[in-house]
């Protein structure tokens, strides 16, 4: 699979979380994920229309990495984290952060802002305005990691029980809490085969991807960095 197609697939998959605010683009994105790469360009267009903020992030990452915004490395850097984020001038990250803070009426909290999804969720998304209030939504919206402990089938879908660390609010600070078991949606058709013991990336109670140690470290590193900014 070419890098751009792989990046589009990842963008489509990680965008699924918003699909309850459904629009005509959902069907295009889902069909692209489930079927072939025939409607790749159409899917990209759908993602851009549906998730304009995400597109702003990958455009800046792509610009400084000299890559197409939908290149797999760029999309992966946004959702999972990667050292290419460290090459983006802080002025460029700050410019985008300030734009979103202004739009969502949030005071700028940190100069350490990175163009990774969890920074967006904790620092500049509409949730960031009232973090304690929207703690559980932020926990669903961030990209988290967890280890699969069991998989079972419900009527029309699979459930993966995963051990992960939820966000907690303690003494005025938001941090990762103790490990707990949670049930997640697992769509075999989209994600492929996953096994007990594997570490996965999750978004909106959905297993998205089996991740390797490097990716797990990146998600956790950028999550902690983002939490330290708020």
């Amino acid at each position, binding site marked *: 699979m070419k890098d751009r197609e792989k990046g589009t697939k990842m963008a489509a998959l990680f965008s699924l979380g918003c*699909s309850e605010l459904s629009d005509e683009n959902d069907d295009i994105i889902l069909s692209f994920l489930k079927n072939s790469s025939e409607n790749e360009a159409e899917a990209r267009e759908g993602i851009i229309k549906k998730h304009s903020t995400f597109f702003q992030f990958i455009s800046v990452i792509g610009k400084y990495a000299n890559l197409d915004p939908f290149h797999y490395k760029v999309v992966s850097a946004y959702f999972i984290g990667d050292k290419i984020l460290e090459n983006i001038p802080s002025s460029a990250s700050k410019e985008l952060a300030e734009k979103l803070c202004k739009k969502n009426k949030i005071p700028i909290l940190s100069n350490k802002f990175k163009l990774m999804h969890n920074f967006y969720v904790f620092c500049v*998304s509409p949730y960031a305005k009232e973090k304690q209030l929207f703690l*559980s939504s932020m926990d*669903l919206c961030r990209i988290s990691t967890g280890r699969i402990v069991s998989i079972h089938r419900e009527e029309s879908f699979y459930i993966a029980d995963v051990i992960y660390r939820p966000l907690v609010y303690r003494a005025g600070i938001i941090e990762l809490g103790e490990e707990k078991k949670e049930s*997640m*949606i697992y769509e075999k058709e989209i994600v492929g085969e996953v096994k007990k013991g594997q570490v996965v990336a999750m978004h909106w109670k959905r297993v998205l991807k089996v991740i390797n140690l490097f990716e797990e470290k990146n998600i956790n590193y950028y999550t902690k960095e983002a939490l330290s900014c708020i």
Partner: protein
Amino acid sequence: MCLTIPYKVVDISDKITLEIKGEKKIAQGSLISVKQGDFVLLQNGVIIKKISRSDAEEITSLISHYYKKKEGK
């Protein structure tokens, strides 16, 4: 922006029926057990989380505010 509309569980007798602003919807499944009157979040038709009434109101207000702004209203 990752936003999911909160629904109210209005019937669990056969399938789980949900409602938002008078519009009814059948849940495709649930990760949790729910009862009539609960407020829940969905993921592609599957109930993923129970939330309080006040959280449901806050999220609904956030969504309507966000989309009004997006549409330039």
